[in-house]
């Protein structure tokens, strides 16, 4: 029997700021599965091996705790390819790099990685202190899973459930009935509402049942469901604050072209708790 491979976690660094905070967060996430931390520095130039860690600004104290790699080429693609190559479980990526334009939800490399990641991506945001992120990730009590009614969104239930089971956390599943239907990918409300007081009652139950039916949620995981109305991104962010959530696990379709990924963009800017994104496998067609 082949030895079981140790899980791997990837931390892309661009050297634009000290890596200590990002590495600390990665270490907490790596502890979830006992993963090995791999650091990747993507650059246009060929660097001698001994220079990579310095250029990536990996503190010396970390050099024995992580493995450092370099890759050439367009950073987002390089990160994706490398993550695939090492079968990374999670990518821990800073929201902004060298450009540091905090008015944008994330930098172009991060957004590029989010478009087609081979695994979940934890986005380290400078809007949140490293300490608070570490604390929340170490003590997961409430994990928020936004659901938009699509089959893809329910994939986040499986990932979040595994996490919740391990951490003893509770799942909070939130569906936002949207007042901007052009933003949504799937039916988000009952198709017809003959008498809304009964329709929402029946539809809410069915929405949750069908979401669970598509996912593999261990029965031991405690879960609650909530509905909100309004702009999905804003309501998810607001709900996460109101409920003091420790982590948001969101699946999304992966297209960041203008007019798309409204929820992802809004959460990157407005959520006040850690964010982890899954690129969902398409189930219902393109």
């Amino acid at each position, binding site marked *: 029997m082949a030895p079981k491979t140790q899980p791997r976690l990837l931390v892309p660094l661009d050297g634009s700021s000290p890596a200590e905070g990002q590495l600390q967060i990665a270490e907490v996430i790596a502890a979830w599965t006992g993963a090995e931390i791999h650091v990747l520095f993507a650059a246009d130039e060929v660097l001698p091996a001994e220079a990579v860690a310095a250029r990536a600004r990996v503190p010396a104290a970390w050099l024995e705790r992580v493995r450092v790699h370099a890759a050439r080429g367009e950073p987002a693609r390089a990160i994706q390819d490398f993550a695939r190559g090492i079968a990374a479980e999670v990518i821990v990526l800073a929201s902004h790099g060298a450009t540091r334009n905090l008015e944008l939800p994330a930098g172009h490399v991060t957004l590029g990685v989010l478009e087609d990641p081979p695994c979940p991506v934890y986005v380290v945001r400078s809007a949140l202190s490293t300490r608070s992120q570490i604390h929340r990730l170490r003590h997961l009590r409430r994990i928020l899973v936004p659901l938009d009614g699509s089959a893809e969104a329910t994939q986040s239930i499986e990932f979040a459930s595994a996490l919740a089971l391990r951490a003893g956390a509770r799942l909070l599943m939130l569906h936002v009935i949207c*007042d901007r239907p052009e933003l949504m990918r799937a039916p*988000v409300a*009952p*198709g*017809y509402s003959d*008498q809304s007081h009964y329709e929402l009652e029946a539809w*809410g139950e069915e929405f949750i049942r069908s979401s669970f*039916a598509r996912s593999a949620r261990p029965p031991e995981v405690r879960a609650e469901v909530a509905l909100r*109305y309004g702009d999905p991104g804003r309501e998810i962010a607001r709900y996460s604050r109101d409920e003091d959530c420790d982590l948001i696990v969101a699946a999304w379709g992966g297209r960041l072209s203008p007019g798309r990924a409204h929820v992802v963009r809004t959460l990157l800017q407005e959520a006040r708790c850690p964010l982890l994104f899954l690129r969902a496998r398409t189930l*219902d067609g393109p």
Partner: protein
Amino acid sequence: MERDPTDVRPEAPGAESLPASMLVYDGFAPHVERGVEAAFSVSNGLFGVRASLEEGNPASHPMVIVAGVYVPTVLAASQTLLATDDPASVVIAIDGERIQLAGAETLAHRRTLDVRHGEVARSWLFRDRENRQWRLESLRAASAADERCYLHRLLLAPEGDAAGTVSLRFAAPPVLEHAEDRAASRTVLVTSADVPPLGTIRTSRRPAGDWRLEGDTVTAPVTRAAPLHIESVSHVGGGPGVGVVEATFDQMLASHRRVRSQRWDDADIIIEGNDELQRAIRFALHHLLSAAPPHDGYTSIGARDLSGEAYHGHIFWDTEIFMLPALIFSHPEAARSCLLYRYRTLDAARARAHSLGFAGALYAWESTDTGEDRTPSSVILPDGSAQRIFTGEQEHHISSAVPYAVVQYWRATGDDRFMLEYGAEMVFECARFWNSRVTVTDDQYSIGKVIGPDEFHVGVDDDAYTNAMAAWTLRTASELAGRLSTIDESSALALRQRLRIEPAEPAEWAATASRISRSSFFEPRVVEQFDGFFGLRSVDVSAYRKGGVPLDIALGFAAVQGVRAVKQADVLMTAALLPDVWQEDAFRANFAFYEPLTAHTSSLSPPVHALLSAWLRDAERCRSYLDETARIDLGDFRGAAGGVHLAAQGGLWQAVIFGLAGFKFTPDAVAFDPFLPPGLPALSFALQWRGRRIRVRIAAEGMLEIDVDGPVTMVRVNGMQRPVEGRAVFAFDPTITFWSAMQQGGTYGA
């Protein structure tokens, strides 16, 4: 095997060879399973049973729902129909290992709804962990011959020369009893489930083959030649005692099929040229015929019938306006029974009117067993906020819906005895209500603070639909008061005396009717739906339609009050029911105005628009709304999870028969003004009218064939009338609209 749902298409694997009276669902998709269970449910009006997997599944929601028996619920509904366990549910194991879809390798899985016989069959071919192939087949029927009887057959056999020991574990340990039937003396397994307040559901199971009973489990060695074969008969609400001679399962099934197929043949509709519409109309007919309650007048039909728990079995205007027309013309005894339910609850309607300071009868907006109004006054929404509900207080047009159905039934059947003993009383009391409901200010007769079919807007004044139907009720009651005397003078007099109808009262009803504002529409202008409607804020209704979000849910209750949009046909609904109060140009102008403002948030709306589009000869809209209606429950099944939208199915029937066939009637004649949009070359259907069985075939090239089984019948096509005995052929011009035909003397509906 799991895949996303498909439409029920005959091109699904293996379905091509099935007759057109079968609907097929291949595969299994957990997230829509509850919708499939409801869509493929069977019922006989006394109870309904969903097409759930017998061996159970996390996605399943098996149940038997019993009509007319309401139990308290902590939910806002306060009362809900009794739902209990399905006796067909059983834990199945092969050689000690429980079998379920999730754990087995499924090679094929199919459910087939035989709409003609009202049965659902299931076939599951799977491979177990020992690599043996097995086939499980089952059949369910809610007997149309004996309404207490639920028939279920289960067969499990290996393929090839495989063998195994099969065990079935029931919810409760069965008792062995000895029973005689015409075939032989046999041992049966009997379980009784106590289901208060219904009584018991007693199930007799007759396993075939070499089996033994240990506690709650039946075990049998099984081969292909000696399958496990169990026939179960459940009596809902009691059953025969031990040793009583019973018919065999096959005999009971044959009786059921005989009754059901006769009803089907009296109602079937064939739409040539469009398989989806054909399936949809047959699906609609299956559920409408299955919903027909026992003929004892005790109960009626709830919004989702007996196929699911949504709406808790509460009875709305949906029944009288959307469901009953199909039954009036295909199964009039059932329609009569539904109207008798309204007669049985008339005292509750009187009490309600009185409690609000009105005369006559105000029927419950949401009715259950006693006729008291069960509409919740508020509800806690899933986001935790509280919402007031006003429909129970203000949606009074229910007291026009009941008289409308009474009169429609009477005119279609000629059941004078019903009208004298029951119907007229309901019409008179509702007229009294409207006469007291109207307020008169400066000779302006108004009905204020109501909710019309457009439930977006509450507390409105002079809603067009409410006013028009109130005026109709008053006018009809006045005419009826005089008419009854010509039918049976002494009975009519006795009724007037019992109800203390003053001599001047009928004339007063007629006078009030003629003065109610916004109740007739002969001028070619757009009618304001209610006072102030034109001044409301405009909103892009089509954007919400495209996004699939009901407008009131998207905007919220408060915001939707202020927008110029309608939930469903309101002004336009008056034309669907009372075309006589419209002039064609007026109707066209109002359709052009209101149709774009209609959000179709209610499932009742698309079929009404299909019907009206047919009358307007708008082929594109007609097809679009027909297709939308067809998809309400059959589209992706999710919407049907809580039960089939039976009113929408009734609406589809009306869109086809009243719309495409242009069927109209009076007590003296039947009339047709057909219109078949391109792509529908022919339409055939059967209906009953005044004791006659009538079959019609309409061909798009302009030929109508009619076959009347019964006395000579006056038939009018495009206004041209002649008596028909047996078979006749008429030519028609599809460009002739209903109104132009009306000008030649036709009238419609009630």
